[in-house]
């Protein structure tokens, strides 16, 4: 895709500098984000955790261009994006960013495959190409037999998997997931968890905002947030099997 080729692939996919977001004014001023510095490398899965109200969803919205920061910079693949017009942001989202929402946000009147092909259609693909890609993606998430079902006929987990397929439609640089399992029961959570893990193994760059520790545990790197700022960061992917024995109660 030309748009992506023109963007740099060297260096971090996503970078922020001093990102701030404020709401209200005067006595009612709320610092939703207080100077966040972030980098996401290509192919990395980053998890952001924190209590509700800590600003993690706000962070995600700013990174996806769904809201404008009060201050600071956002760089996507070497290009500054926080100052772009709505039109340019829309184009950006078309080709570079995929979204997965807590509430799924599928169109109720479209079948699964019609939902998945929507971003491709919006990007100007021919209907046939869009449909083909959608079918591929549904196969990837294991929902080929559900392609012609409406969302109302799908379970929560299936809906979210359709949403993930949709997010992958235009081969985005990064997929942003906002509490992807927030509305799911534990069985569905497991399905989505497996899917996210497979995305990670295939090299997709992911940023997941979650309060579910299991989902966070699929990441390469974990950041904790509180009151609009990062407080702790850990690598999660260096071999820790030794610790595993301790945790299983097999060692003293």
């Amino acid at each position, binding site marked *: 895709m030309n748009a992506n080729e023109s963007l740099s692939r060297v260096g971090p996919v996503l970078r922020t500098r001093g990102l701030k977001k404020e709401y209200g004014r005067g006595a009612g001023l709320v610092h939703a984000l207080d100077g966040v510095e972030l980098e996401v490398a290509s192919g990395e899965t980053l998890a952001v955790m924190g209590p509700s109200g800590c600003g993690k969803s706000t962070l995600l919205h700013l990174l996806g261009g769904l809201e404008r920061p009060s201050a600071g910079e956002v760089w996507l693949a070497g290009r500054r994006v926080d100052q772009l017009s709505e039109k340019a942001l829309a184009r950006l989202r078309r080709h570079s960013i995929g979204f997965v929402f807590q509430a799924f946000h599928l169109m109720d009147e479209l079948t699964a495959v019609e939902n998945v092909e929507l971003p491709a259609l919006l990007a100007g693909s021919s209907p046939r190409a869009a449909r083909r890609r959608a079918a591929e993606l549904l196969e990837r998430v294991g929902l080929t037999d559900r392609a012609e079902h409406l969302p109302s006929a799908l379970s929560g987990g299936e809906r979210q998997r359709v949403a993930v397929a949709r997010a992958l439609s235009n081969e985005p640089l990064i997929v942003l997931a906002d509490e992807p399992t927030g509305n799911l029961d534990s069985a569905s959570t497991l399905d989505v968890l497996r899917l996210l893990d497979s995305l990670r193994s295939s090299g997709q760059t992911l940023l997941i905002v979650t309060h579910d520790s299991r989902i966070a*545990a699929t990441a390469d790197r974990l950041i904790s947030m509180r009151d609009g700022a990062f407080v702790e960061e850990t690598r999660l992917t260096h071999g*820790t099997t030794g610790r595993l024995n301790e945790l299983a109660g*097999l060692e003293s």
Partner: protein
Amino acid sequence: MPDAIGVSMREPSHGYQLRVVQEVLLALLAKEASHGYQLRARLQLALGPLADALNQGQVYVTLNRLEKADLVTSERVGQADRPDRKVYELTAAGKERLEEWLEDTSWPKPAPAEFHLKLVAAAAAELADPVRLVDAQRHALLAGLAAAQRAALGEPDGSVAGLLLEGVVLRLQADLRWLEACARYWNATKGRP
């Protein structure tokens, strides 16, 4: 709880907690007599990826101890002086011990008190921010959770070792939930004198 015979819980070794291995071997012998290497293989199967740290000689050492305690008997088959040629069998006393163990419902004790006191002490002495301590501990547990989960995902469906890993994950999740509560509490009390 019956006394562990001749075994100290705090024995500093980098093998397993010997007690667990004892009872398990007894159980594995309940159905039929087995060679030492067979017992080791079945143990490895049950532990899956965690079996990696299974000390080579641990099983045989434990079998020796059990024999000394008259819970199992052994018979040499074939050539003498080669441990892997012994066939072990459960004694009546061993069976009794096994049954006691199986019926025992005592559960490994959780111990939140230690960490809890750590936070209280930090706050009282004003040496460290309890909230930061919680954060650090959370991340450590999450790293463990990540490892366990990765291992669990690697297991095929229906593997018995997967069940063990699931247990690790779920216990960690419970601990993490408590840690989140601690964070909330200590964050709220920050403002208070």
